[in-house]
């Protein structure tokens, strides 16, 4: 190594305020106060071996692998010190394994001890090849062990959930998993049990001291939406996933950065594939977004793209048999083009692209609707929605970016975060982690306007402002009078209000939030649930907005788009289009001749029965899909499109941050929506210039977002509904792990879903006998009841879980009045 020259001779380096100067291995270094020695050394290029240390977890000092020699004030400390727990100090002299024989021997000694009870089964271990224990044992360990006695053994593997399996023999008891679950996720379902060499990780079920080594988990396993992170941060192969276990070797995998397609968090990830097949997904490292974490859905739900029923060839409905038959692309595109052209020239065709598209694909739909179909009948919102929401999106959302809007770090710095109609853990799990971090580390006050004290309320150390579903707008209006401390804090610098997709079901809520934000100065951010929604706003996949936030009604904006697109002046339709409900109603009423449908499920729409009627109506339906769906049944032409792994593109996350990704699996032949639409456009004499995602992005970029000049939403809040006898107001939202179509073929993941229960207050549950049947004139849902602190007369149902498909079964949503009766009764 190079020894730094004697600095004293050349003059002292000034130490800035808040920093200290110390010496590591003879090199002088300036480090911020409070920095751990292990990090300072790392900045100098000296990697001190470690297991328990993790930069995002509180220090533990448990593994003792990172011992170094330390001298303070000229006096050497009598024992080597753990560099992962000791912070830098002025004048400290540190000798790592590079210069200290004592530190080197201590590290070698600890490594030897770590290995005495380790099974050394690297050749069959998932971690072999990417294992910190293996790597560090090579670098800092003895070539062979002196241990020749009996190793401590355990039965294995121990399933601590359906997804996570524990090998207690491989475990080095670094406590990363328990500390992650306790500190980061707030799900301390795993803990250290027993002591000494019998110490082990376990759950409540494995804690039986009388029978400690032979139990497997039963009723209360590791139920955490973040359990997969423990597998990733495990420095040995002790925690493995049922999904990936024994499937591959790290050195056979090709890794590719990805962006998660599941929600609007926008997590950076890594996809590992082998021979054209995705084997696993891992969290990437993006300090601005997901830090180093990923929710289990993002980690494990990717097999949908490998489903046996994946659509790979275009299909056209045969006139005679009425069946879909596979045809060449040229034929299918011709059929689609003919049908859509006819529809356009007849009573018109509309576009329902769905909320899971990349920005580029959404833009292609948006442009296709305007140019090829000459309509503004396009709406990506495959969920409950309202015209008020359109005003909100146009006036408050479009054009927000991390530079001018709310970000993850803004949440962390905020004195107060008010979550409205938003269930962070279920709807945007990484936002939840950041809220918990803010509350835990920075004392951010988190207030949830909702119906009951959910896990997220508890785990963000939050307060619940409970209201009847639909009463959220009135509650927001009432803050000034009834919650003056909250009102004051909303005026504080950095206060944030987060609103979720459910707000569209609550009349007046967006308007109330807009007024609240205007009055208090609190910043307002919209966190949709689906990954494509934020980008689709920018892409103009809405009946009132053209790309870049330009209002359809604004002639100057239309002219700008026409110039950019190189189309005739006045060619763009000037009338605002119909929204999803309007399109569905029109199609069902026979007022539309064609529908171009992206990835959406009729059961997600406000009125699933009506949506099915619309699809079944005498209407030409072109479906762009990955797998057969309820749309496929009624489609005249089915065009297969690529899942995210097989295409490039970008998502805008809730912050408006562009999350670009490239193709992971090359050469599968699957085409992105934008390419299919571009070619279909050519068939229809419309040039979209969206042949590739890059081309589409370039085309959209020329339509830079204009300062929104849309009117703010201004809708009065609804009067609270009062349920009658035998009735209740329905509260509902989706659980993170449910029956979503992107979670198919993942039984291990599904096993960690939260139980499907109806929740209501004790008074409301009285007399129901433990099971409730919630019904409307459309149908019913029967579930076991769990009593929670909901307002009386309210029943909560998971929106899309097994046995509780609220939209499909009840045709109702959040805020609707439903009948409740003892379970099973009709």
């Amino acid at each position, binding site marked *: 190594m190079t020894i730094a020259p004697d600095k004293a001779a050349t003059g002292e380096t000034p130490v800035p305020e808040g920093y200290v100067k110390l010496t590591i291995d003879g090199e002088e270094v300036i480090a911020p106060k409070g920095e751990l020695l292990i990090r300072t050394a790392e900045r100098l290029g000296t990697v001190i071996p470690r297991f328990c240390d993790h930069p995002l977890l509180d220090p533990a000092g448990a*593994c003792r692998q990172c011992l170094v020699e330390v001298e303070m004030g000229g006096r050497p400390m009598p024992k080597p010190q753990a560099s992962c*727990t000791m912070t830098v100090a002025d004048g400290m002299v540190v000798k790592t394994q590079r210069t200290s024989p004592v530190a080197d021997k201590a590290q070698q000694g*600890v490594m030897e001890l770590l290995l005495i009870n380790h099974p050394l089964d690297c050749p069959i271990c998932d971690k072999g090849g990417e294992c910190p224990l293996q790597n560090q044992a090579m670098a800092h360990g003895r070539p062979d062990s002196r241990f020749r006695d009996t190793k401590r053994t355990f039965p294995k593997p121990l399933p601590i959930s359906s997804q996570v399996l524990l090998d207690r023999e491989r475990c080095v008891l670094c406590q990363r998993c328990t500390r992650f679950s306790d500190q980061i996720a707030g799900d301390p379902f795993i803990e250290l049990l027993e002591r000494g060499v019998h110490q082990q990780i376990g759950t409540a079920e494995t804690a039986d001291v009388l029978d400690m080594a032979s139990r497997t988990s039963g009723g209360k396993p590791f139920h955490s939406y973040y359990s997969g992170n423990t597998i990733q941060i495990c420095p040995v192969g002790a925690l493995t996933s049922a999904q990936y276990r024994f499937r591959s070797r790290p050195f056979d995998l090709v890794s590719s950065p990805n962006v998660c397609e599941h929600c609007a968090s926008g997590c950076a990830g890594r996809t590992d594939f082998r021979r054209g097949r995705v084997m696993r997904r891992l969290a990437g490292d993006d300090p601005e977004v997901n830090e180093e974490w990923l929710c289990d859905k993002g980690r494990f739900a990717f097999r949908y793209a490998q489903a046996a029923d994946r659509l790979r060839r275009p299909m056209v409905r045969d006139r005679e048999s009425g069946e879909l038959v596979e045809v060449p692309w040229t034929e299918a595109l011709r059929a689609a083009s003919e049908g859509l052209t006819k529809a356009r020239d007849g009573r018109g065709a509309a576009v329902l692209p769905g909320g899971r598209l990349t920005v580029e694909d959404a833009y292609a739909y948006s442009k296709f609707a305007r140019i090829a179909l000459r309509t503004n009948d396009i709406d990506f919102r495959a969920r409950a929605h309202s015209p008020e929401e359109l005003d909100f999106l146009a006036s408050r959302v479009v054009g927000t970016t991390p530079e001018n809007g709310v970000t993850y770090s803004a949440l962390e710095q905020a004195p107060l975060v008010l979550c409205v109609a938003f269930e962070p853990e279920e709807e945007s799990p990484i936002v939840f982690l950041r809220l918990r971090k803010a509350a835990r580390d920075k004392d951010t006050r988190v207030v949830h306007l909702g119906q009951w004290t959910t896990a997220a309320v508890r785990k963000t150390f939050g307060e619940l402002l409970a209201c009847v579903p639909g009463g959220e707008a009135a509650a927001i209006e009432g803050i000034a009078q009834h919650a003056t401390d909250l009102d004051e804090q909303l005026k504080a610098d950095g206060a944030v209000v987060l609103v979720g997709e459910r707000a569209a079901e609550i009349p007046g809520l967006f308007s109330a939030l807009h007024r609240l934000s205007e009055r208090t100065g609190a910043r307002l951010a919209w966190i949709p649930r689906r990954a494509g929604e934020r980008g689709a706003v920018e892409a103009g996949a809405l009946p009132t907005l053209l790309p870049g936030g330009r209002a359809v009604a604004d002639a100057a904006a239309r002219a700008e788009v026409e110039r950019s697109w190189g189309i005739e002046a006045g060619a763009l339709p000037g009338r605002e289009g119909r929204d999803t409900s309007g399109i569905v109603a029109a199609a069902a009423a026979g007022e539309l001749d064609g529908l171009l449908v992206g990835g959406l499920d009729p059961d997600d729409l406000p009125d699933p029965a009506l949506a099915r009627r619309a699809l079944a109506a005498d209407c030409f339906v072109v479906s762009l899909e990955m797998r057969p769906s309820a749309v496929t049944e009624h489609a005249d032409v089915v065009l297969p499109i690529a899942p995210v792994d097989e295409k490039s593109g970008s998502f805008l996350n809730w912050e408006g941050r562009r999350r670009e990704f490239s193709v992971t699996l090359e050469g599968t032949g699957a085409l992105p929506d934008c390419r299919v639409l571009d070619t279909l456009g050519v068939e229809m004499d419309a040039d979209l210039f969206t042949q590739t995602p890059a081309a589409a992005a370039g085309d959209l970029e020329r339509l830079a977002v204009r300062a929104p000049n849309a009117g703010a939403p201004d809708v009065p809040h609804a009067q609270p509904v009062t349920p009658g006898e035998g009735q209740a107001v329905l509260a509902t939202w989706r659980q993170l792990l449910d029956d979503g179509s992107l979670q198919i073929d993942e039984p291990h993941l599904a096993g960690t879903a939260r139980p499907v229960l109806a929740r209501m207050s004790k008074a409301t549950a009285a007399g129901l006998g433990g099971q409730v049947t919630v019904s409307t004139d459309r149908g019913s849902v029967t579930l076991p009841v769990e009593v929670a602190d909901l307002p009386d007369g309210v029943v909560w149902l998971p929106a899309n879980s097994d046995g509780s498909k609220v939209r499909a079964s009840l045709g109702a949503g959040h805020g609707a009045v439903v009948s409740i009766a003892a379970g099973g009764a009709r």
Partner: protein
Amino acid sequence: MTADPITPVLTKRWLLPQSWRLATYEKLEGYTAFRKALAGTPEQLVQLVKDAGLRGRGGAGFPAGVKWSFMPPNEDKPHYLVINADEGEPGTCKDIPLMMADPHSLIEGCIIAAYAMRSHHCFIYVRGEVPHCIRRLNSAVREAYAAGYLGKDIIGSGFDLDITVHAGAGAYICGEETALLDSLEGRRGQPRLKPPFPAASGLYAAPTTVNNVETIASVPFIVNGGADWFREMGSEKSPGPKIFSISGHVERPGQYEAPLGTTLRELLELCGGMKDGIPLKFWTPGGSSTPLFTAEHLDVPLDFEGAAEAGSMLGTTAVQVFNETVSVPWAVMKWTQFYEHESCGKCTPCREGTYWMAQILERMVEGRGTEEDIDTLLDVCDNVLGRSFCALGDGAVSPITSGIKYFRDEFLALCEKNRAGKPELVGAQR
């Protein structure tokens, strides 16, 4: 009051009938000191204990007055006094007899110490294996409440104090002060990362002082007798009386009070000499975590400095005496098995090291050892000593390193090429 080195102080009431009763205690100056203490200021008391030079009786010998002075002067958060009565060190038997025979001296000490540290809640964490002691302590606490010595406005002084007696659940590690605090909070007893130290963030993250039973029970005597009187006993740096718990091959094992600095030779006289006259072979000055001594060390003054100079530690003054009938490797194996059983598991060196060393020693005692094992043992000891999270690992290697240091021949005799007939008796005189 003048001090006579032979006159007992801490144990003076032990042989009285019903010595544990409040009435008995009060007959012999009991509950006189705390009245004087409550009339003074907390600062005066801290200074008095500093002046007396009282050092912690739990093993480490940290000056009690200095420890008390670490408590913050303000009361933004509640202050806690925690009494470490988790007496678990092998050979140690002083705190439990003290609490059995004279619980009120501890309670009076708690009142004084709590007042000195502005604490209004004191917890006494007693090891769970001694229910009889816990019962007696609880009844003494009840008596003190009934007499108005505990609770609100103690004897009209305006000072409030509650005492909670808490039973541990049987873990040696819970004698480590931060593990004790975790256990007291209802968590797994494992040592905490320091800093923050308990005085800054201890029990329930509030300022806390953890003191040993004997330390606190000494305080009323200091208040009554004064710092100079206290210093008449013991040595310059280790003043005061001390309870030596003497066990093993002596005629009359038991608790013997003597000033610090007393030698084993003097202690043996007190307890009637070696049992049946069989000569002394080795002994521990302060429990199994303190390196062994041999007959060479009969005249080592047993105070903190003396024991350390001679290569061991005073520890808890648990003098375990072994005569020539005991095999050193066997005794060392038994101790090591104890540490293996009691290692909490938090850190690698102690968890794995004790497991490994116990197996090597078991194998050696079975006659399947090799000379290489002795080197391995010493090297593993070197990799555990000073590398573990808390002092348990350091204590675990003491019997091994000192045993090999003084009795290497016996370990060698166990090795394969010298395979002995009855390995468990190697080195033992028959």
